[in-house]
């Protein structure tokens, strides 16, 4: 049984039709690459799955059950974690604080219940080490490089044990070494039965870790193929419209 099924997802922002009847399924342990030109609707689709806003039409099924997400926390409670394209970080907080934002660890009993800074700093440090990122948990995000910020956003998804991880261009601003680590992380997630949707403009990344590639063009899914049955050239053609559909 598939983990996630999207059925006829349509999304309009007023006169703009961002998505037109998109179907997509993903099984546990599977990684799907979602590709498409700028403005094709990739982020919109990810945000719908993550509960940022509801689709105008269409259905989301998780393990066969129709779900309705009213807010991001609903999706998270259903086992979906997301790395947003704009990372959604608070610049004025530390890296550790951002990793744990909204699910801070606390110790002690009320009224002396307090944030467990030591535990959060330690855990965040472990997560950054796992990502081989030179990110210091106590640093303010404001002072961080693009790659470090990305590490913070990715580390967030590792706090729980989600069923599905959505990554919206997680490798856009990072070094070669860190790209390799993110790709390794995706492979590890697959090996442990997690599903991943990877939005990326980087063809080699998608062909390295994904089992399938889906292509969106102007809000419509024009291809959805196993990676073994396609080539970077074909995918490029699909993205830019040189190839109508496949």
């Amino acid at each position, binding site marked *: 049984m598939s983990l996630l099924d999207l059925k006829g997802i349509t999304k309009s922002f007023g006169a703009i039709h961002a998505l037109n009847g998109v179907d997509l399924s993903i099984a546990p342990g599977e990684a799907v690459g979602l590709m498409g030109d700028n403005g094709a609707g990739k982020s919109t689709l990810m945000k719908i799955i993550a509960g*940022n806003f509801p689709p105008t039409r269409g259905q989301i099924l998780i393990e066969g059950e129709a779900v309705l997400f009213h*807010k*991001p*926390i609903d999706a*998270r409670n259903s086992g979906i974690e997301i790395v*947003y394209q704009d990372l*959604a*970080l*608070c*610049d*004025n*907080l530390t890296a550790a*604080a951002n990793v744990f*934002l*909204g*699910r*801070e660890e*606390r110790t002690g009993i009320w009224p002396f*219940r*307090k*944030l467990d800074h030591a535990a959060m*700093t*330690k855990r965040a*440090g*472990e997560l*950054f*080490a796992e990502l*081989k990122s*030179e*990110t*210091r*948990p*106590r*640093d*303010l995000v404001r*002072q961080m490089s693009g790659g470090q910020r990305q590490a913070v956003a990715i580390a967030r998804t590792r706090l729980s044990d989600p069923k599905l991880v959505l990554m919206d261009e997680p490798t856009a601003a990072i070094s070669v070494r860190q790209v390799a680590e993110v790709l390794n992380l995706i492979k590890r997630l697959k090996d442990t039965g997690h599903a991943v949707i990877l939005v990326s403009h980087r063809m080699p990344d998608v062909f390295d870790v994904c089992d399938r590639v889906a292509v969106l063009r102007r809000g419509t899914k024009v291809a959805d193929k196993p990676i073994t049955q396609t080539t970077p050239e074909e995918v490029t053609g699909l993205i830019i419209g040189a190839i109508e559909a496949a």
Partner: protein
Amino acid sequence: MTDTAQQQSPAQKAMDHAAIDDSITSRQEMTGLGAMLRTQPFWVFVAILMLGLVMSFVSDAFMTERNMFNISRNMAFFGIMALGMSAVICTAGIDLSVGSLLGLAGINLALVLQAGWSVEVGFLACVGTAIIVGLINGILIAYLRLAPFVVTLGMLAMARSIAMVISNNKMVYEFGPDQDVFENIGGGSMMGVPNVVWVLTAMTLIFLWIWRYTQWGRWVIAIGGNPQAAKLSGIPVERVIVSVYVVCSLCTGIAAFMFIGYTGSATNAMGATYELNVISATVIGGANLMGGVVYALGAPIGAALVELIRNSLLLAGIPALWQQFFVGLFLILAVLLEQIRNRGGK
């Protein structure tokens, strides 16, 4: 760095990574002292010491126990209100209604006491008024997404007007059977320190704890930094914003309770233009109107500077008409200082 790294053996490299990771986790961005030097409250504190030093030469009356007692008592009322204002400003909001609320809560408190109720009931009436006003402000701002400036400006007018209507434009100075207890709470002192200063001290410690150790505090700071990100992280942004305005009003309610007890009378004009002093104290204490910055110590320190300016002008024989000028000047200087520090930091 790349050259030497390439020449290392794999084992060496692996060890290096482990070492790097280790040092990264334990390394802190700044030492405690360095961090302190970068905060505005610290520099304002230095300014207070310098102004105090200058004043001790200018006026013999300055360094007297009497004058210190007065300064600390006067600044405490503003300090208590500024603690709450800090929370509001941290969310990039503003509360212009605190002065009017001081008047309204004070009148309600006075009328309840005058009617013969106990001081406890009076306290509840005072704080209850504050909570209601805070709730109205907060709900309009958080759920109806009205601009804080406009909502609280409207509340400034409405609360003042209601205070006038309720008091029938009369002064209240009869506080019923508990008059002595009540006036002693607001006007008395313990161990040579005014009670209201004790209240400010206790509340400052509570807010220190709140900003450092509570989830609520963390959420307020996060909302000030990036409300969208806070929302996406599952923080109940609207509810937190409402609570912030309630907390601000609550602080004003507590200040009103102490203030009426101290002055021994309540008029409906009480607290007019206090919003200027409270917001100035908060901003001078390091709050950033763009949100995301809060210091518990900033409120009392900012309030102390504002009061010190007032006191110094008085003792230096400069006409009281200049007071607001200097409060405004220091407000602008504080914002300028913040700008300069930020540029230096980047």
